[in-house]
């Protein structure tokens, strides 16, 4: 059975299968293959139910909050009362009661009322959605849990582009991120892909791509393999990158692409200098991938502030291999 990304609204993401029960906030919900992708569900008595639209307020900002005093006494219900109402009357009734018992709700501007309601709904209705397990979604989900064992999707997409990954390209993969890179390369190609099974090699993420670890499409590489076989050498590792390249660069054909990722700037910088100094490659480029998401609403457009991952997606060094003997 295939895997999907479970996105708890303004909460964590995880990879799950569409069967059995999972926890959303404080409640459990039963998942099934009938669920629609990309739609918001709420949990009702342990069952998923399509939630009414997010009704984003599309108008201008009105009102102001001059009378607003933020002293944590705005809500007159205690947390015990809140749990009690949610259990006995359900999430929607609770939100209405919360609003009625909020001293400040009516003093809020229309969009901060909406923000308040959205927060309460996410929390008390246990809102969630399921997303396709695309390479980007798998990478971001794993990155949100263990950044050092994954790669953010923006960096992954750049790495694959710089690696010239496409259907009939002969790729040599060095994957230190649990199979996320290997899985992505397999998804973007059609033939066999060669992977280096090094000391830290793990491929537990492959299942999320719907790929079996013993797939016929995966073959094993040794440094003794014939030189110049591959069109692309693609690496994601936190290990000393230069040692990896020293071993495997000979297997890349002249004019093949080198594309390597690390979260350690020093590792990519060492490779950058080495490739240039020894003229092992041209078009050598060392870069940080920088991405920022925006909230876009009328008069309320700004960079998202809830992204805990920051703006840096890590570092990539890339280039095109050359032979320097002159013709």
């Amino acid at each position, binding site marked *: 059975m295939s895997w999907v990304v479970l996105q708890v609204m303004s909460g964590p993401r995880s990879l799950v299968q569409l069967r059995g029960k999972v926890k959303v906030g404080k409640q459990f919900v039963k998942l099934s293959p009938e669920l629609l992708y990309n739609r918001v569900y709420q949990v009702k008595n342990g069952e998923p139910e399509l939630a009414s639209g997010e009704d984003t307020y599309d108008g201008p900002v009105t009102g102001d909050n001059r009378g607003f005093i933020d002293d944590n006494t705005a809500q007159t219900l205690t947390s015990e009362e809140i749990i009690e109402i949610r259990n006995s009357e359900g999430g929607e009734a609770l939100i209405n009661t919360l609003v009625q018992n909020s001293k400040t709700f009516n003093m809020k501007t229309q969009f901060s009322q909406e923000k308040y309601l959205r927060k309460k709904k996410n929390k008390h209705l246990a809102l969630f959605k399921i997303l396709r397990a695309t390479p980007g979604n798998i990478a971001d989900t794993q990155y949100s849990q263990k950044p050092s064992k994954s790669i953010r999707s923006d960096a992954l997409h750049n790495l694959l582009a710089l690696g010239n990954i*496409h259907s009939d390209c002969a790729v040599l993969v060095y994957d230190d991120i649990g199979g996320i890179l290997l899985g992505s390369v397999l998804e973007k190609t059609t033939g066999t892909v060669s992977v280096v099974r090094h000391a830290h090699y793990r491929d537990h993420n492959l299942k999320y791509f719907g790929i079996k670890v013993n797939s016929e499409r995966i073959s094993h590489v040794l440094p003794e393999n014939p030189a110049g076989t591959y069109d692309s050498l693609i690496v994601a590792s936190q290990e000393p990158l230069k040692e990896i390249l020293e071993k495997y660069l000979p297997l890349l*054909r002249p004019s093949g692409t080198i594309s390597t990722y690390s979260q350690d700037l*020093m590792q990519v910088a060492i490779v*950058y*200098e080495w490739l240039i100094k020894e003229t092992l490659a041209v078009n050598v480029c060392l870069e940080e991938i920088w991405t920022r998401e925006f909230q876009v609403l009328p008069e309320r457009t700004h960079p998202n502030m809830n992204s805990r991952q920051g703006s840096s997606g890590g570092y990539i060094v890339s280039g*095109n291999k*050359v*032979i320097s003997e002159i013709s």
Partner: protein
Amino acid sequence: MQPASCLFCDKSANPSKTIMIYENYNAIKPLVLKEHGFFNNRFGLFHHDRIISTPLGSKVKEVKEKGYIYTLTTTPELWTKGISMRTQILYRADISMIIGNLNIRPGSIVVEAGTGSASLSISIIRSLLPHGKLFTFEFNPGRAEEAKNEFIQLGLENNVVSECRDVLENGFSHAGYTEADAVFLDLPCPWNAVEKAKEILKVEGNLCTFSPCIEQVQKTCQMLRKLDFQEIKTVETLIRPYQARTNEKGNLSIQMDAEQERLHTGYLTFAIK
């Protein structure tokens, strides 16, 4: 059918193929090889025959044996660097994000407008080989024609249909496909095109628009919400280049490479039908 091997994997420099000539980091140009042909650049006069006799990735000298260039396999990344710009173009950071988030893969059917200088188009085609197809629309006849000729020169014509068309007026339908897996819009007013784009997108198909200004993005997002698109997400993505070299003290020094840095290109908005 796709030829056995496409140009993005070429190992040898064969006559009539397009390869890339690398002079330096900021001077990379495509070259169509001809037997007995030659070309001139700041380093001197180069014979095509000398290039043809060596594998790609070689250092090749000019006739006086002083200046030299490197020959490289054409890749979309190099193509974008060496492109003849007929319009503003998209660069690799945005292109990677577009290909990745639209989840373009072997076999995808993709629709694009406007073609512009086909910088993005070439990357899209690479990702959907060998059996997928790009339908790219451009209302400027000259640009549509040039793009078409380039696709043929690069040997990609089996995987792309390039048509001169105003998509705001005539939409995206085409006899060559029924439903698109993904649609990409780089137009001045994308919000006026997303309703027509939705008509030809498959359910769960991906849409992306690119706009330099935030006011354009706001209009697009408002329209996407109205049309009940899901997972609407706007990002800005950039590349921050660095340089590294060993200094006099023998330490590796890493510095920002401000000259190569692009400070803003535009915003990418993604949505799912």
